[in-house]
């Protein structure tokens, strides 16, 4: 029953938050906008084609590298816990692991994968 009460509180609080923001927008915000008022800003110009378009995500390689190192950090947490028990062997293992990853970065760098273009 207590769990049900907590869920009810969340629902009510959420509903109140939605209603308050809606009321704030009506009380303070501008009224309904005409289509020209919603047009995108292009210095007085306009678009000819629709904006649903696919383009080259240039940070793609950088994003993948970031993910790889993010996962490596996850691996380092359990390693840090057992580091004191294992001693120098743990340090060597981690150094080998990091070295291999750094080689990967250097390779990507040489292949110009880190440049914007």
């Amino acid at each position, binding site marked *: 029953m207590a769990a049900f009460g907590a869920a009810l509180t969340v629902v009510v609080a959420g509903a109140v938050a939605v209603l308050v923001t809606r009321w704030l927008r009506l009380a303070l915000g501008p009224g309904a906008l*005409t289509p020209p008022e919603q047009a995108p800003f292009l210095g007085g110009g306009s678009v000819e084609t629709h904006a649903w*378009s696919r383009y*080259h995500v240039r940070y793609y390689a950088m994003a993948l590298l970031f993910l790889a190192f993010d996962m490596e950090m996850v691996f380092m947490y359990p390693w840090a816990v057992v580091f004191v028990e294992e001693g120098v062997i743990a340090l060597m293992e981690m150094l080998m692991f990091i070295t291999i990853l750094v080689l990967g970065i250097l390779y990507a760098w040489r292949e110009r994968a880190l440049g914007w273009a």
Partner: protein
Amino acid sequence: MGLTSGLARLARRAPVPVFPVVGAGGRRAATVLPTLDGIEVVTTPRAAVVLLVVGRVTRALLAPVLALHDQLPGPRAAVQWRVDGGGDGDGDDLAGVLPGLVAAPPGDGEQLRRLMGELVSGARTSSPPALPPVEPAAWRGVGPYGQGGTGMTGGVPYGRPMPGWADDRDGLKLDQLKLRLGPAFPPFPPGLVLDLEVQGDVLQTAAVGDNPFVSWPGDPPVTVTDSVEFAAARTEAVAVADLELARARHHLVWLAGALRHHGLAARGERVLRLASGLTIGDAAAVQALARSVVRSRSLAWATDGVGVMSGDGLPAGPVARAAGDVRDARVADDAYRDLGFEPVTDAGGDARARLRQRVTEVVQALELAERCGDRRREPGGAVEGPRGTLAAGEGESTPSAALLERLPDLLAGQEWGDAVTTVVSLDLDLEEAALGAGAPVGT
């Protein structure tokens, strides 16, 4: 006290966000805007409360100005600074289309602040939309009644065709977005309209649209109002010192705009203040400024190798001199004889070289102004203006017109940031380019 009035009191204390649109004859009057107290020049109408039109709205500018007016979120106000020589009233029917338009003399910051106060306190109502509330292009589905279609392939969403495909420079086939930018895109010179095809941040093609300052039959004629001292020097005697100070001031105003574009707005404002009260005695301050600009790492990083222009066909002027071309009309000018004038040049012809070239020319202009005493330049012959050599006769091609012609080839293939930097570095003036041009096609 209600919530609204409390917020209004807070809003009155904030600087007035102003989005400027420069019309015919308004360029010089608009330069003071960032130095006015309590005024903040914003780069998009979405952040603005006041739409400030400086100068005369030509017929070609009217539709974009109305579109921009509607893009200001309410409460908003529209102000026009009327400029002498801009053909006051003639051919400008902005007041007829925008009922709440407030006319004011140029440079009146106090009035802009008062307007904002009236707007937030409710004493003045927001300027109503200028355009009718219709979709510029209505939704069309695939069905006979405009219905239907699935996802991104269905119909013509909001009347605009889906983008076409084209090869991109990385060997992929990607969509092309077609858009028209300008004539009031803040980093660009006033009046510049570019028709662009972009893939992501790469500009595939660029075409220069109709110049809004080319006068139509029956409209007031165009006059150069930005570098007016140099246009005047063709027909009347002027002091060489005045001419050189005007040159230094012109380049400093350009530098302020370039600094603003490169994210150094506060620095640009200080340069603008220096330019507005520039005298021969400011040589030391100008030299210090030139040194810091040339040495700046961030400016070098942003401009190095961007927009390289060199070779034949460049109009004589700072852009050509930044690529090592020594042509300068002052060499053959009697007024500069035995002043020991020698044109300064730079190498590389990129945006960085043009930046260096212009700050060096500011220093040189102040030196010349100091050395020449009260010597006067007699009318006649070509005048070396701040944008390049102005031919002696009327109706001849101007440096800005020649550079505009080369703009599409220069911009094609550039990334967006570099393209804007390139346009900024050329210091174009559309009014100067409109001199000698005929009426626009299709009027």
